């Protein structure tokens, strides 16, 4: 009989502890009660070790995973996803290694990262129906990695605490950011991670934090952590207003990233108007 319940009564941490201690084999499925299409997550275990996880959306496609970890460019991932439609992850991994696009290590590291991100996200779920189906394992064509649950539980718990703080500090992701008007001397020594660089390149009063996260495939947790760090460093600050009226011709985005259709993410306006360039010329002439 499957283990069933609700995260209200039995947290993700407790579930993982149980699976670890009882050295269980099977798949744990958690479904958000709001029942959004992508609000389902599955984690598979073999003798108490985490071997696979994915969410209900299609983000577990290997090309997508490799793009997220920067092993493939967005364009490469897009082409591969189109051309290799119907190819399973194991076959695709083999083909990519043969083509010299990635190494086996790239694949295992990226899949591991993907699995862990799915699981860490679940630590923040406070409600949701769960069900553990013993001996049910992922299909053979999925790439599995064996990960000790002890370290996952420790890191998940740490993130949960951090998440609670970040949620309190940054409750609203529908606000935009801008670079600080008067940066102080601390910025002289600022160094940014790759993810932070990605976020920086989208900082614009027209882009909400949520949109920046979506454009960069960042979870709420990740974007909150990055933005919080930048706010603390004095690099960015909240923009008072977000202009929502962006005409389709002006609305732009990195061509390879997903977009929010309500208000397209705008990194910069590529269809720059002549008047803007003229204003820039006038300004630089006057410096």
């Amino acid at each position, binding site marked *: 009989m499957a283990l069933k319940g609700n995260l209200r009564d039995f947290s993700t941490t407790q579930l993982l502890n149980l699976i670890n201690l009882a050295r269980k084999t099977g798949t744990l499925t958690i479904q958000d009660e709001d029942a959004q299409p992508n609000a389902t997550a599955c984690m598979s275990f073999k003798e108490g070790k985490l071997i696979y996880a994915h969410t209900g959306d299609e983000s577990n496609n290997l090309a997508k995973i490799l793009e997220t970890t920067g092993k493939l460019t967005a364009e490469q991932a897009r082409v591969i996803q189109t051309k290799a439609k119907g190819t399973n992850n194991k076959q695709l991994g083999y083909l990519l290694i043969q083509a010299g696009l990635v190494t086996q290590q790239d694949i295992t590291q990226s899949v591991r990262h993907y699995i862990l991100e799915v699981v860490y996200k679940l630590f923040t779920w406070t409600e949701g129906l769960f069900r553990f189906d013993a001996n049910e394992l992922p299909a053979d064509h999925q790439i599995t990695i064996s990960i000790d649950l002890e370290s996952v539980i420790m890191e998940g718990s740490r993130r949960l605490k951090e998440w609670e703080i970040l949620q309190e500090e940054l409750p609203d992701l529908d606000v935009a950011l801008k670079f600080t008007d008067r940066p102080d001397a601390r910025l002289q020594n600022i160094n940014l991670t790759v993810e932070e660089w990605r976020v920086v390149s989208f900082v614009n009063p027209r882009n909400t934090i949520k949109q920046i996260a979506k454009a960069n495939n960042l979870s709420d947790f990740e974007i909150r952590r990055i933005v919080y760090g930048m706010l603390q460093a004095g690099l960015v600050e909240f923009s008072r207003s977000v202009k929502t009226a962006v005409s389709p011709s002006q609305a732009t985005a990195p061509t390879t990233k997903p977009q929010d259709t309500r208000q397209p993410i705008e990194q910069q306006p590529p269809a720059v108007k002549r008047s*803007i360039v003229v204003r820039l010329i006038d300004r630089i002439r006057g410096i």
Partner: protein
Amino acid sequence: MQAVKMVITGPFSAGKTRFIGTISEIDVVSTERRITTSAEQIKDNTTVAMDFGRITVDDDLVLYLFGTPGQRRFDFMWDILSQGMLGFVVMIDSTKPETFREAKRILETFESYASTPYVIAANKQDMEDAWEPEDLRIILRLDSSIKILPCIAGNKESVKNVLLELLYSILEQIDQQEAQNQTD
């Protein structure tokens, strides 16, 4: 507030940071010297020095200048920075012929990212052993339509000239596109 972006790229130590610092109204520059050279490979926790400046046009418009990390091992950042740029400047240290090939490679990489206008800034023209811009054109096999501008990164007028020439090229491209649209 609308923000537009230009990218200043080029090999390591070509003068990008100085170029941005000369014209930027804010002092937000972290030099490449702070990047550790010991790391052999890019790791997830690798940090990259930041290089950007700002020119406020008015209450509604601001121009950001983003400098790219010069070392080859940070070229994964270029794609990120190039997204949405208005145009780019390729800085070349005219006194270091050993970096010319790298400059060409960077130029070709950025060209592949976007069809935005660009100019070449032949930096350090105040140095005795600097190559002439037209010599650079020949050695880099650059088409005559590409602007190669003499530059001294620490000189404001020189930097202004480079940016203005880039903006003129952008303006020209806009006009050509508009003319094309009218023809269509």
